[in-house]
């Protein structure tokens, strides 16, 4: 099999798994088995892809062998392949976790096929090299996430879903409008081709308008300030397995798109776009962490922390130096693993007490030492305590900030980091250290799970916690990979060369883009 064909595997495998799952919808054991096997397959194919990209450089697949600007292009560069690999790891962890945490009713409603559909959309968005195709993958991902969010039809799920659906549809409409305008301006939607055409685009005003339209569209998906309100209103409502995969992956698709747009397409007016991004990054960090401090429920606190951490990722992008971008990549790697894990752990806590409210839970340090250890590792990593993964991610970003002499954002990042630590210790003292409150639901008689059931809940959490520790211990290699990714992102010519080997295709056949005079 030639190497290019691997690029399509992370999209084709979830599709095939989904079809098989839909055909066996009646049998719950079959759903569980096929779901986990499919996720494992995705993880393996993603690992293969990452290995190939590391060895051979950017891999490009022209769908149907149509040459670049005309057909659909799939591109796997370092960033894409890292994101796909993380998506594979997360879906594997969540699939295993869901075996013991998602009830049979939800499974029979199609939980597993929807997870696969979601992953197909996520991987498609990471791998596509075409703006309209990106829009389509966004929608695939969104429709799957809508159904997952409402699956089960609980009261608060429906309420959360209205907000989630509304804001995501607005962002899609803005994205579509932006696609229309960019096509009118340049006559192409292929990202490499666009990158070439926007470089020498005569009308700076149009490019600024376009960059802002894309900033709003992708910023809403990424939950940056002031477009994040849908996230804390909805992420704590669905089953934990769903929250965890959303927390890990969905906003990161937005961040990925922002990175793509503002490293490849809109790099002509850095003074304007990237300074604005820097301001947004600072405000996102601060508002997110302040929102988290006001909360008293495990998953609500964690939801606000997603927002805060999106700020760090955007910070590296806004500074736009190799070191800062490497920090962003490192931060994304660290964040996806840690955040998913914290949601998984929060889910185990919620299952024990049937609530996530901090005043009704406690005593977990004594009653669940393994859980306490895993939580402690992840929470400290999130706050950025050495030698865990979060420390190196933040260190790189802050070094990037100092190097670029943007001291305000560095101060903001450090203060937010401290507040994150405060927030994490709040969960720690309330849920783990404090004795069980008197009015807590009788958790002593919590139905003991079978050994296999507990393995399914704890296994993924332990796996992800060891990945966190692993990233911290192996910070050197991860840093090298991030650095290589950042350099590749800044080398737009390599991307363009890989997609359009024959150089720019200015001569669109006479299907002309000129307006006719009436």
């Amino acid at each position, binding site marked *: 099999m030639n190497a290019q064909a691997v690029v399509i595997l992370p999209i084709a495998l979830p599709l095939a798994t989904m079809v098989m799952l839909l055909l066996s919808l009646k049998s719950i054991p079959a759903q569980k088995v096929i779901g986990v096997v499919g996720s494992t397959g995705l993880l393996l194919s993603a690992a293969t892809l990452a290995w190939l990209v590391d060895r051979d450089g950017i891999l490009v697949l022209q769908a149907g062998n149509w040459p670049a600007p005309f057909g659909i292009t799939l591109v796997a560069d370092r960033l894409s392949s890292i994101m796909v690999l993380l998506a594979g790891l997360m879906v594997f962890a969540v699939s295993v976790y869901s075996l013991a945490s998602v009830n049979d009713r939800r499974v029979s409603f199609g939980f597993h096929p929807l997870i696969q559909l979601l992953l197909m959309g996520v991987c498609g968005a990471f791998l596509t090299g075409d703006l*309209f195709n990106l*829009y*389509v993958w966004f*929608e695939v991902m*969104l*429709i799957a996430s*809508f*159904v997952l969010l*409402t699956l089960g*039809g609980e*009261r*608060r799920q*429906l*309420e*959360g*879903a*209205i*907000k989630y*659906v*509304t804001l995501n*549809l*607005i962002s*899609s*409409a*803005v994205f*579509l*409008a932006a*696609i*229309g*305008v960019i*096509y*009118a301006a340049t006559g192409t939607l292929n990202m490499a081709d666009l990158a070439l055409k926007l470089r020498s685009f005569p009308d700076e005003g149009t490019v600024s308008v376009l960059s802002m339209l894309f900033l709003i569209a992708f910023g809403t998906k990424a939950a940056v300030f002031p477009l994040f309100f849908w996230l*804390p*209103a*909805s992420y*704590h*409502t669905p089953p934990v397995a769903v929250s965890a995969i959303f927390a890990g992956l969905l906003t990161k698709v937005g961040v990925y798109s922002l990175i793509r747009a503002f490293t490849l397409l809109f790099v002509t007016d850095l003074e304007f776009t990237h300074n604005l991004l820097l301001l947004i990054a600072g405000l996102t960090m601060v508002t997110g962490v302040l*929102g988290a401090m*006001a*909360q008293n429920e495990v998953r*609500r606190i964690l939801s*606000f922390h997603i927002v805060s951490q999106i700020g760090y990722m955007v910070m590296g992008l806004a500074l736009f130096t190799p070191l800062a971008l490497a920090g962003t990549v490192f931060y994304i790697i660290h964040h996806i693993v840690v955040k998913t894990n914290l949601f998984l752990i929060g889910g185990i806590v919620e299952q024990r007490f049937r609530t996530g409210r901090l005043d009704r839970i406690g005593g977990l340090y004594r009653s669940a030492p393994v859980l306490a250890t895993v939580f402690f590792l992840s929470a400290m990593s999130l706050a950025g305590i050495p030698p865990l993964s979060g420390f190196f991610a933040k260190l790189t970003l802050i070094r990037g900030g100092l190097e670029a002499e943007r001291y305000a954002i560095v101060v903001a990042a450090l203060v937010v980091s401290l507040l994150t630590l405060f927030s994490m210790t709040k969960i720690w003292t309330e849920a783990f250290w404090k004795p069980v409150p008197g009015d807590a639901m009788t958790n002593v008689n919590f139905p003991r799970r079978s050994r296999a059931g507990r393995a399914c809940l704890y296994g993924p959490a332990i796996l992800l916690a060891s990945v966190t520790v692993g990233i911290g211990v192996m910070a050197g290699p991860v840093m090298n990979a991030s650095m290589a990714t950042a350099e590749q992102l800044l080398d737009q010519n390599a991307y363009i060369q890989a997609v359009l080997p024959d150089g720019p295709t200015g001569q669109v*056949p*006479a*299907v*002309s*883009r*000129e*307006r*006719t005079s*009436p």
Partner: protein
Amino acid sequence: MDILLAITVGGLYAAGIYMMLRRNVVKLLIGLGLLSHAANLLLFTAGGLVRGRVPVIPDGETRPLVIVADPLPQALILTAIVISFAVLAFALVLIYRTYQTLGTEDLDELKATDT
């Protein structure tokens, strides 16, 4: 024609946003529908308007001889319409189920998941 369509697109955006600012959840959905129509029409207009010249290449030629309509925006819009149809169908069911469960159609009363 361009001007007329541009005004229509602007009108649709304005109407859509106005509807979304109302408190009724059904109006919110109508607003979302209008917004996606506006985006589709914008895509169509921005793609260039050519009247009555189908993009068919005559026999023996490799490219069209005259300026023809650009088929790409139309293909894009078709895709976008199908997607927005699916999404709106889902949203309709969602607001119906919400109404059944919560017994209200007033957006201001959907505050339980807010922070």
